[in-house]
């Protein structure tokens, strides 16, 4: 049981040529910069989407992160992995985006037409699959409501399988802060979804 749902520490092996590409990009090699973009573009988009939950915003944030990388190329240490630096940039951009959108979140609280239809179908044909889908949707909504500083830790730890050390490095936090924020994030989610969790245990 425990091993089935346990989390394996993510082994983020660095691409062997990443350092070389960083040095080449620093010297003006555009092809090397393109390779760096291609190497990290999916991760950047994934982090961004987990944070902002919309494709357009995630796309903008991921693109902006690589523009920031281009501007900061001279300051990048080619001996260190690029992923933590890029992750920090994406999370900061996403956090800023969420802060700007904070006033608009309340307007989006109402579920969309698709969600309403899904709920109606689930009520008419309540199956375990439908209940699971409903639970995941509610969880997603609950995660969306989390403060960015909790959400970023939760996203990296739970959804992106990052280790505490990697999260601490990426977000420039201490290990204790990472664990504390992760614990508080989970507690909020558990409180938010207490009724659903109780049904699932039954």
């Amino acid at each position, binding site marked *: 049981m*425990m*091993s089935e*749902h*346990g*989390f*394996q*520490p993510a082994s983020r092996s660095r691409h062997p040529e990443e350092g070389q590409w960083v040095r080449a990009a620093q010297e003006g090699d*555009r092809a090397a910069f*393109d390779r760096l*973009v*291609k190497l990290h*573009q*999916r991760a950047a*988009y*994934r982090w961004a*989407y*987990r944070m902002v939950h919309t*494709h357009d915003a995630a*796309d903008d944030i*991921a*693109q902006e992160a*690589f*523009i920031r990388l*281009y*501007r900061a190329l001279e300051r990048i240490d080619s001996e260190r992995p690029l992923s933590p630096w890029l992750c920090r940039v994406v999370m900061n951009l996403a956090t800023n985006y969420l802060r700007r959108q904070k006033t608009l979140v309340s307007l989006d609280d109402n579920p969309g037409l698709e969600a309403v239809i899904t709920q109606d179908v689930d009520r008419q044909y309540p199956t375990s699959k439908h209940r*699971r889908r409903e*639970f*995941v949707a509610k*969880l*997603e909504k609950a*995660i969306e409501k989390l403060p960015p500083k909790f959400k970023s830790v*939760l996203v990296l730890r*739970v*959804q992106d399988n990052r280790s505490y050390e990697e999260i601490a490095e990426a977000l420039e936090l201490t290990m204790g802060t990472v*664990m504390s924020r992760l*614990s508080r994030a*989970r507690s909020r*989610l*558990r409180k938010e*979804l207490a009724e659903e*969790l109780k049904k*699932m*245990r039954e």
Partner: protein
Amino acid sequence: MSACNEIKKLLPVSPAAVSPEEYRRIIQHLEACPNCRALQEDLQALDQASAEIELPEPGNEYWENFGLRVRQKVAAEGAKERRRLIRWLTYRPAFSWPAGALALVLAFFITRAMLPDGQVPESGVILQEDATLVEELETVGPASPEEIAGEKVLTVEPRSRPRAPSSAEELPSGQPEADEEATALAEASDQPAKKPPELEAEEIPHKSTAGRIAGKVPEFKPDAVPLEEMQSILAARGEEAPYEAPPARKTIILKGDTVETQVSDRGLPRGRDLELAERPRVPFPVDDTAGSPETERLLSSPIAQDYSGIRALNKDEFTAADREFFKERIRTLSEKLSAKKLGGDRRKVCRELVDMYYQLAVNWKVTSDIERAIGFIETARAMLPEEDYPDLDAKAAALKSLLGQ
């Protein structure tokens, strides 16, 4: 409870996150503690459900173009930086135009405020030199040659300008018309239009072309006849408005074949005008053969013989009506010459105009007339054939000699 608190910090536990011994100890606690076991199950469910949250897949095309879009944005960013740099280098405040206009307006009013009372900027009165030919001719005051015993004296004096009365009350009731411009200025400013005497002495020689020529004169002295006295005499006759004293006087004396030029620093008394006004007027045209012996002598001089136009010198005296005749003729010919459809008459008109300018200049010896005549002769060279050049050269030389050049 202390064991629960310690265990809760590690939940949800996984075998890979802790050592095997720690993992075994946690499992034993969870089997014994329902609260911690429920927490473990809830957190596991949350983590598992969180991992199930689907991510949209934009598609291969999106990922293939992702880098290209980044490059485009980087390039656009560079262009934007360059534009920003250019804007910064060429930055001008948005309020520069209004501020500039305001500064000009303030400068205008400050300049006006710094002028003495009643004095106006030069553009209104003094710049008659820039007016049209007709306007200039109209402002020229009467003048006449003087005869001094045994010698023909040609007085070349700067052009006189209308002088404003010292005040509106000083204008005599019987005077038909005062200087309209000065009156208008006096009315507009509610101040006397008369300039302070100390300003007249310095300004007048430099305002007009005549004044610039008279600038060669080392010193200017005000009128020898008081203005008020002259005004009263003229007003009693109701003939003409008072005039300023000309700044200087240049005299050309013809002694046989020689020409002498004398520049007098003595102010030209307006009494000369009064003296001329007392003389009997001679109708125009006059009989050229009725000249005095002195006129005959002048006509026989080398200078007079060189120019056909010098015949006018034979006149014993000229009046304002004669002068008006020349001015009107010049005006008519000038308008005719400026007409586009003049055709072959252009040379004829031009030649006559040269003669009219020359007659006006040599008969009245007014500096501004002479200057205008010289200027038009230079202009006429472009319209006349070379066969006319000797005549033009002779006229120009004679006119320049009148100026003492």
